[in-house]
């Protein structure tokens, strides 16, 4: 059973604006937030062992644990957040991982890197997104720390500011993605390393459909992507579509709310 890290949304809310989705004027409904997160927790708990980190006041985005860092085997590489609003999350995640027996390996403070949000394994390749949040220079450091091939892809649409908002690799070697979120070089690089890519339509991509948690044949994804769900079902996946409206208001959904511990047992 896979181990996942989640963070209850006790202090979650739209308190600042650091991506095009966020609007302080259109805050999240607390009651619906709790309900949507509990549903995600319950769904994931069916297939995985879910661990919880204690939420912290004044760190509303700590709920998005995917950005805590990247875990491979027993090694945890904490993120260096680009925005100061989120930088305060780092020590809490690092301490929690250390207390749970993970070896914490730090990146240089000068490199921005936002964890699993911008780093996803597909086959034996680690795909890393850059520009809006992570620096491409951090990818080289990650590749050295893990000793694996890192494919760096440039993100060009600010609405899809993390790699996990527009790309989701599948265990069968395929994946689904929103191609327009990448420049042409990124598109070519992904096509060269991922077979049978499913293109997600723009109207479904904006429901954060690519922000999905894949556990073997089960895929937990936000509701609002019937075309994608039917294509995934054709490939033999079971899809669990959940309402995520209150988290999408902050630019996150199922995958952003989840970190794998580890994402891979070993790199490469």
């Amino acid at each position, binding site marked *: 059973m896979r181990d996942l890290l989640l963070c209850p949304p006790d202090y979650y809310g739209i308190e600042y604006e650091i991506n095009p989705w966020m609007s302080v004027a259109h805050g999240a409904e607390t009651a619906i937030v709790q309900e949507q997160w509990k549903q995600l927790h319950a769904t994931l708990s069916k297939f995985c062992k879910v661990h919880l980190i204690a939420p912290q006041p004044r760190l509303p985005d700590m709920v998005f644990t995917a950005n805590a860092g990247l875990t491979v085997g027993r090694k945890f590489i904490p993120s260096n957040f680009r925005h100061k609003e989120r930088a305060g999350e780092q020590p809490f995640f690092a301490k929690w991982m250390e207390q749970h027996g993970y070896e914490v390996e730090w990146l240089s403070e000068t490199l921005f890197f936002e964890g699993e949000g911008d780093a996803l394994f597909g086959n034996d390749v680690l795909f890393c997104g850059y520009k809006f949040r992570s620096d491409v220079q951090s990818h080289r450091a990650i590749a050295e720390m893990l000793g694996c091939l890192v494919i760096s892809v440039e993100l060009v649409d600010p609405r899809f500011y993390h790699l996990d908002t527009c790309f989701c690799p599948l265990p069968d070697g395929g994946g689904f993605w929103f191609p327009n979120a990448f420049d042409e070089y990124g598109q070519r690089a992904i096509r060269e390393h991922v077979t049978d890519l499913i293109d997600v339509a723009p109207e479904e991509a904006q429901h954060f459909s690519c922000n999905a948690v894949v556990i073997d044949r089960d895929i937990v994804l936000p509701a609002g992507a019937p075309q994608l769900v039917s294509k995934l079902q054709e490939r033999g996946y079971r899809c669990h579509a959940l309402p995520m409206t209150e988290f999408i208001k902050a630019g996150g959904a199922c995958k952003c709310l989840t970190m794998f511990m580890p994402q891979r047992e070993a790199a*490469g």
Partner: protein
Amino acid sequence: MFSETIELRGHIIDSLILPKVLDQILTHGGNFKITEVQIGRKRADQSFARIEVSTETGEGLDELILRLRQQGAEVMERANAQVAPAPANGVFPPEFYVTTNQQTFVRFEGKEIEVTPGIINSAIAVDRKKGSARAVKFFDVKKGNEIVVGHQGIRVVPVQRTTTHTDPFQFINNIVDAEEPKSAIIREIAEELRRARGAAGKVAVVAGPAIVRTGAGGHLARLIEGGYIDRLFAGNAFAAHDVERALFGTSLGLNPDVAIARGGHENQLRAINTIREAGGIATAVREKVLTSGVMHASVKHDVDIVLIGAVGDEGPLPGVTTDVIECEKILRDKLTDVTHVILLATLRYSLAIGAFLANNVKTVCVDIDPSAVERAVERQPLQSIGLVTDVEPFLRVLADDLSGSKVTK
């Protein structure tokens, strides 16, 4: 040309970052030279590329580098040039850098600045406030001026030989000796002068007295009337010969048109006296005392006249600068915007002027003495044509070729 060296590391081949960076350089008007590349052998091995990026402007380079940094490019730190204060007026600090006539850049406080003007045998003074670098002569330097010392932080960009054969200055064998045919080359030079006139190039002639003595003054006057010459550099002797010829039909008492002339040697002194009496060449033209010749044509057609004195000059004529340092300052200032220089039968002034020419100035040197031609063109082997010939046939063929396309500037 401005340039920086960048380095790319990582999985730049599989991520297509190397081709992306090269494409970005080209699409933003830059050029690149890959100076080193190492491709990783195993799947997880990282690759490395060192690339020299160059652009036409400094701003263009800054903008491009900013883009490339986003793709992970690291700019190689270049060392800044070292400077030391001038210990006294007219004295450079020890180990001062001596310029060539090649385009030169100096890196100062992290920025690369072009040294202007691009003249040989100077030191480089940097001005922190203006962010400028000047080539300075001894007479320019004041105590405390910051002068570049050593070779660190200096980049010299030699003129590249073109790969296309459109420029006669780069594919004609530099020196055409006395026994080789010249009319085809003179036609090429005529074509170059037409192009220069059309492209607002500044053409200067450095004229020696032999032009007048061989009876070629009329041909040079035709070039001036055709609007092909912007500036005339000459010594007192040339002007005096030309005026004498205009007033008395002789030069140094000899008439190129008749075997025996009246008046003899005294004509030159009388001619100089006439101009001195008139108050100068321009006044003499205005008052119709001087009505023909090269100086007359120059005044009439607004050619900028620069007259330089020498020991033994008769007169001198009004307007001749006799202070040597003053002459150097004038030459430097008057040559900064010149694109073409035609050196005609005067080794003395050809060498003096050559010392103030940037390496991108196209030069034609005509002299009957092969060693004079050789000395004049040796500094600019890619930008110069030397013709060993009497100046009269050269100017005649050139003026005949160009006189079909007279314009007034």
